[in-house]
């Protein structure tokens, strides 16, 4: 079905649909959309073979704007639709676009199970720490104290950390990036795309209308260098304007600490090296409190395992190998004990 013969290099315009984009002016979603439209041609993606599946929310409007296949489903259930779709046609590249409310409030269970089963999906969670579409109620990622129409005196419940939730659900690929990071985002998209299995990507996304600037402390240009730890597998975890801040693991407490290279005898060699396959360090990186610690960005954890869709296919092949080549349905009907009336 996929027209593999046609090899002309596609452009971002080939991935932009004819639908008018309907987000608020200044919404972070625009930047993510642009980035996706720019990255897919670079990845050599085929629009006919690409499907964006979403739930409900501002972010979930995303599929309408991509000139690929798209399915805007119902609130919170996108991973379940995507799972059925992927099992139906494992050759498709399936992206799930979701918001913090969609993925972690109503949809938490489906997010968990898609990740646990390791279905080969790329899940992008646009986290704006708010319900945009329904006009600004707090979400499960909103910080304690968030004043919103439903919490006029401030929210009191502790937010969930999307990355921890993904890891706790058995995730094999967890990454983080920022809507405005037009250089970093494509790298993360590529890694997610190339990862076989459920890739979980949290994108810090600014909702200019209902939750403006919550991420400023680490996304603003002036703060970025000192506030962001850009992870690279095999590289020491160093950041800062002067590239002299680093993470070490305290031997007594088994907890992470921030150190300064050149102070107290610390050298670059002392700094913890990022190992994408170390799950418990991944947890620590995700849970580092900011400020105090930097915000870890990039691929935090990646340790591939067999995917659900592959395993189902492999099992089918194995089962069929033991069955006649041309299965006979009438024979199935006649299975078991039968008798004949003459």
């Amino acid at each position: 079905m996929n027209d593999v013969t046609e090899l002309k290099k596609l452009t971002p315009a080939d991935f932009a649909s004819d639908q008018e984009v309907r987000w608020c002016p200044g919404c972070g979603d625009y930047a993510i959309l642009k980035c996706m439209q720019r990255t897919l041609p670079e990845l050599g993606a085929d629009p006919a073979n690409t499907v964006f599946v979403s739930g409900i929310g501002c972010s979930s409007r995303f599929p309408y704007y991509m000139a690929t296949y798209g399915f805007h489903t119902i609130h919170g259930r996108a991973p379940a639709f995507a799972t059925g779709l992927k099992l139906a046609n494992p050759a498709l590249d399936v992206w799930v676009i979701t918001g913090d409310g969609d993925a972690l409030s109503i949809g938490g269970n489906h997010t968990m199970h898609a990740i646990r089963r390791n279905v080969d999906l790329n899940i992008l969670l646009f986290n704006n720490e708010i319900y945009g579409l329904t006009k600004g109620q707090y979400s499960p990622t909103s910080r304690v104290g968030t004043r919103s129409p439903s919490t006029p005196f401030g929210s009191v419940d502790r937010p969930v950390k999307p990355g921890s939730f993904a890891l706790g659900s058995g995730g094999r690929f967890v990454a983080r990036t920022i809507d405005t990071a037009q250089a970093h985002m494509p790298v993360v998209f590529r890694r997610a795309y190339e990862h076989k299995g459920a890739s979980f990507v949290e994108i810090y996304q600014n909702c200019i209308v209902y939750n403006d600037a919550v991420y400023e402390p680490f996304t603003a240009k002036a703060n970025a260098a000192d506030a962001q730890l850009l992870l690279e597998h095999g590289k020491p975890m160093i950041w800062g304007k002067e590239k002299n801040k680093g993470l070490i693991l305290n031997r007594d407490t088994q907890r992470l600490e921030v150190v300064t290279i050149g102070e107290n005898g610390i050298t670059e060699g002392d700094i913890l090296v990022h190992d994408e396959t170390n799950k418990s360090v991944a947890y620590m990186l995700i849970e580092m409190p900011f400020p105090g610690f930097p915000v870890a960005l990039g691929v935090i954890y990646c340790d591939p395992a067999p995917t659900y869709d592959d395993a189902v296919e492999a099992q089918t092949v194995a089962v069929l190998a033991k069955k006649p080549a041309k299965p006979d349905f009438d024979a199935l009907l006649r299975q078991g004990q039968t008798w004949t009336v003459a």
Partner: protein
Amino acid sequence: MATALKDITDRDTVEHPDSIVVRFAGDSGDGMQLTGGQFTLSTALTGNDLATFPDFPAEIRAPTGTLFGVSSFQINFGSGDIETSGDEIDVLVAMNPAALKVNLGALRKGGMIIADSGEFNARNLAKAGYAANPLEDSSLASYQLLSFNITQLTVDAVKPFGLGNKEAIRCKNMWTLGLALWMFDRDRTPLVDWLKAKFTKNPVLADANIAALDAGHAFGETAEIGHSLHRFHVDPVKSAPGLYRTVTGAESLALGLVAGAQLANLPMFFGSYPITPASPLLHSLAKYREFNVTTFQAEDEIAAICSAIGASYGGHLGVTSSSGPGIALKGEALGLAIMTELPLVVVNSQRGGPSTGLPTKTEQSDLYQAVYGRNGDAPMPVIASRSASDCFEVAIEACRLAVQFMTPVMLLTDGYIANAAEPWKVPSIKDYAPFPVSFRETPPAEGEKLNPYARDPETLKRIWIKPGTSGLMHRIGGIEKGYDTGDISYESANHQKMTDTRANKVLGIANHIPDQDVTLGEETGDLAVVGWGSTYGPIIQAVRRARARGLKVSHIHLRYIWPFPKNLGELLKGYKKILVPEMNTGQLKTVLRDQYLVDARPLNKVTGQPFKISEIEAAIDALLNA
């Protein structure tokens, strides 16, 4: 024709009744379902028509000896058409006091009791709430009581095989079955074969069970109290020639769905979440990989239907299944299937409600939910199966409607049908007209826009495009869509048009289904009994009896509940009165009255048990005389 077994008077002769109702009852652990199942098979092989009614507790393995732990299996078999599992029991096999207590009420006066006296000990009598041993006082005087120590007889019979006491005792269901086979003049060979196959890995167990079976049989043939036992021979039914098997509703449904997908030339995706009594469908389908069936045990019913819709979007025939509480959870997603106009089959194996209700009991109380139970104006076709074998036909029909109208379809069955077995003249898939799906694959001409909601002018069905097809990329979703374009549209007039289109598409199905026939009787008369689903058996028998008494009564059994067949309204106007027996508080009745403004009168029963023929017959008389 449930002619009651004649009073047992002439000893040591073989009787030839038209039909007999036998119920095996014992502890959950006594293997009554297995005994019943094997007896059913043997009955079928003998050529009798039959209907069964397995009835078991909600507990997995209830504590022994308790009233709530009693499991029973009823079979009605005969030489005429058998449509129900029987109003009254002729022969009750009671493996312990609780089984006797729970089931005695259904035994006809004068019927036979076969009791295992070995289990009527003080402890079990107390658990069943018997102050005295009913086998020993005269409380059972109005029945034919035969009691012997089956437990001990079994233990003796299997002694040579050196089993532990527990294992030895477990063979007593085979002893009982052996006795039953003798009583009803059956061949033991298939049973022996089956036991050998079942215990290939443990031949000692096979031998022990066979020994128990033989001992039970021999007991009838020769043994001490053989004189008080009877032999019955029920003549084979005069069936149409062909190959037969027994089938339960769950099996037949599974096969029908596979057949439907094959006829549509589509792979099938089945997304489900276990729930009683729907799970057997999942279990059956999980085995059929070679027929292009993918089964997916989802995390819940919502994910189950959503995954099935996702698969339909991907070009499979999406199917999902549950029972009432689980179907309730699917309501929101059904709306999306309706809005996106994707094919989907939704099977509801109804059970006693509301809420958790009576999970292992049968009921027909989800018709409202099926026809009306969604937000918004959200019409979808609803069809219902009337019996185990009918499930096969109805499943194929559900698949056909789903793909030929691009719509979700609700298929109603119930716990009774799912578990009950009946003989089935095995069809061939070649007997069915295929309805292959053709996906849209050609891109629109240069300069033309793709309209993913382009419709067939007659059926209003929209086109179906599989993701992966080049040049046909498009987006769909749950927001109101522009006619043709499928793009989001908030436009007022368009919403009216689309709402009407969705309604008319489903109503138009009436033009593509058979006219309603009169199941039994004339096209006019004093009374029509209108039914749907598993009440088929008792209704047709009741109408048959009423007609035999000269009453002008007809039976109309509906397969199509939404939309109704085109001629139904006219047909109903031909009768002076209309009776609607339902195992609910009157749900089909509402739809009939709304659609045709006819005075359909409800006859309702919600006890978790199927109707008795006599109950319906009484209601027919009452309404005719009213």
